[in-house]
């Protein structure tokens, strides 16, 4: 039940994609890495400023990002657009359940976000930008993900 839905969320690109298609994701990733760095959302200082409510900057960035994404998703759904690969664009709803995994998992991630000053995307961008010690953070994040997988059957979801 919940296992299937999570696997669905993460690996819905069931068929493997070919070379040219995959190159697009590399290029989009490069663009996203540049955007994350130039917008300074990868900065521990900015994350501290956000969690101390001492500047509207991060909130303005998140809000305008959500607004643009939401408007685009609405247009895509309304027009029933297809992906360049030809398949229809679908966004599967997340399984809500009793919501515990989102509240508890979200809070645990939030603790880590404030401690490292980085969420997963920025971790990769920071290593690229020369804060090489964040490789250790990435390995530690992999260990955390692995432990979750190990404990998953025992955790409330």
């Amino acid at each position: 039940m919940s296992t299937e839905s999570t696997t669905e969320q993460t690996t819905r690109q069931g068929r493997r994609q070919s070379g040219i298609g995959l190159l697009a994701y590399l290029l989009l990733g490069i663009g996203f890495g540049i955007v994350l760095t130039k917008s300074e959302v990868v900065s521990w200082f900015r994350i501290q400023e956000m969690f101390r409510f001492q500047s509207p900057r991060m909130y303005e960035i998140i809000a305008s990002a959500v607004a643009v994404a939401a408007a685009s998703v609405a247009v895509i759904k309304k027009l029933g657009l297809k992906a360049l690969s030809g398949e229809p664009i679908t966004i599967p709803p997340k399984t809500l359940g009793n919501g515990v995994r989102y509240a508890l998992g979200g809070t645990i991630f939030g603790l880590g976000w404030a401690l490292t000053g980085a969420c997963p995307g920025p971790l990769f961008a920071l290593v690229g930008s020369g804060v090489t010690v964040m490789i250790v953070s990435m390995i530690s994040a992999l260990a955390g993900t692995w432990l979750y997988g190990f404990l998953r059957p025992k955790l409330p979801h």
Partner: protein
Amino acid sequence: MASTAILVSGPWPWYVAGPAIGFFVPALLIAGNALFGVSSSLRHVCAAVVPGKIEYFRYDWKAGAWNLLFVLGIFLGGFLASHYTQAQNVAISEQTRLALMKLGIHDFSGLAPREVFSWSALPTLKGFVSIVVGGFLVGFGTAYAGGCTSGHAISGLADLQLSSLIAVVGFFAGGLVATHFFLPLFL
């Protein structure tokens, strides 16, 4: 052009940065029906390298190859942005600067304070908690919540999903607790 110069020198104003981030949601959907989110890459790496007998990691991780290429791109983008465009100190508010100085931060150059985020600080209490414990919680929490800032706060909220709203409230609850109660204990 002055506007082009700003994009190269940076930092970008919020009204450029935010919409630019939001753009990746439709871009990935149109590229191949891919759902914008970064933390699943951590799961794919675990599944590829150390799946063990764990059900959570027993799936065809190669179907997530697009996601692994996307995060490889993020790494390269971070490199390009910091090496080929002008960087300066992050201009945080004076209040934040003073609050952080009280916690013992004095080096405000770069994207993260070197006193905490450097190889020489790694074996110290503040370095270990920030880098290792923090990273671990990021990995565990995003896996448990099924998404991070990109998957829940941007993609999920944009699709008006209640699950994502709950997760984002959690992100901030955790972040506020860590910032105001834990950081003063070890920085």
